[in-house]
């Protein structure tokens, strides 16, 4: 419940504050958001599996974000930023899909 409230509070804060993303963070934020979404779905799935652990959730959330940003940064330095960003998004997308499928199986038995 607190997680849902936190999500709503975050969205409302973003809408109200209307911050501008610093220029240095602009390439990383979208990838970081996708990575965080992946962590969120992973956490949801773990909760339904009954193996949810807040420590694991925190670690996976933060490490996902950091690693994703790092990969993009590295790609930018190597000159393959766009391609690497696409790769990260694809991988995270696949993970989100598989997590969503697992959640679906738990909830709908199908």
């Amino acid at each position, binding site marked *: 419940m607190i997680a849902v409230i936190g999500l709503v509070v*975050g969205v409302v*804060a973003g809408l109200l504050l209307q911050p501008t993303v610093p220029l240095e963070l602009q390439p990383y934020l*979208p990838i970081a958001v996708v990575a965080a979404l992946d962590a*969120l779905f992973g956490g949801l799935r773990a*909760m339904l599996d009954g193996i949810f652990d807040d420590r694991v959730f925190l670690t996976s959330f933060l490490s996902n974000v950091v690693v994703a940003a790092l990969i993009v940064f590295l790609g930018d330095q190597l000159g393959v*930023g766009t391609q690497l960003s696409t790769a990260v998004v694809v991988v995270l997308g696949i993970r989100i899909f598989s997590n969503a499928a697992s959640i679906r199986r*738990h909830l709908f038995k199908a």
Partner: protein
Amino acid sequence: MTEPTPPARPSTGWATLRTALRFRASRGQILAGLLCAALGFALVVQVRQNNEASLSGLSQADLVRILDETTSRGDALATEVNDLRGERDELMSGSDKRQAALDALRRSAETQGILTGRLPAEGPGVIATLTEPNGQIKPVTMLNMLEELRNAGAEAIDLNGHRITASSAFAGIPGAVTLDGVVLTAPFTWTAIGDPDTIATALQIPGGALAAVRGNGGEGDLQRRTKLEIRSVRTLPDPQFATPVPPAAG
């Protein structure tokens, strides 16, 4: 698992979810809430950013590519603008030339029409009325009169309602002067458009046209007018043998 069963068949998944959604201020719940808040915040910010400036999130290579595309597109459009502008100028000057040619032709047609007697004319001129109180005016006197008018620069000449043109001819005998086959009777009213002073002076010179009229026993009355009208026209037959010389090519 002690929850009341949902309308569908009971499922452990839903029960787990419900349990998880129950308000518990555990460490895990608060942590998840914080992370979710951060995620929602970042999500909204990124969406807003993406809507605001789609270019700022692009990599350098993409930006260079877009710049290239835009530049080449701009060049192509500039070239097209130049082409179209040239075409437009050409068309405009073409239509100007055409218009000028049409104006010249119209002026030429008006001039020709007046000089050949096809069009009514108005302007300053003189009216000479010849009467025959003491005799009869000879055809050659009338011809003399006409030639004097032409010499004085008369541009349109009318005699008793008949337009006189280049092909007009006097014939007949004194008392029955004919103009182009039409018998004229006195008084003869000449209406000539031209410089009134020049024509009047020309007609009145000693031994001139009016003097010849008086020699025939006639009388001449001369009136200068600042504005008079000649309404009579002559329809000309199309030339049967002569055709215009085609303009030089180019």
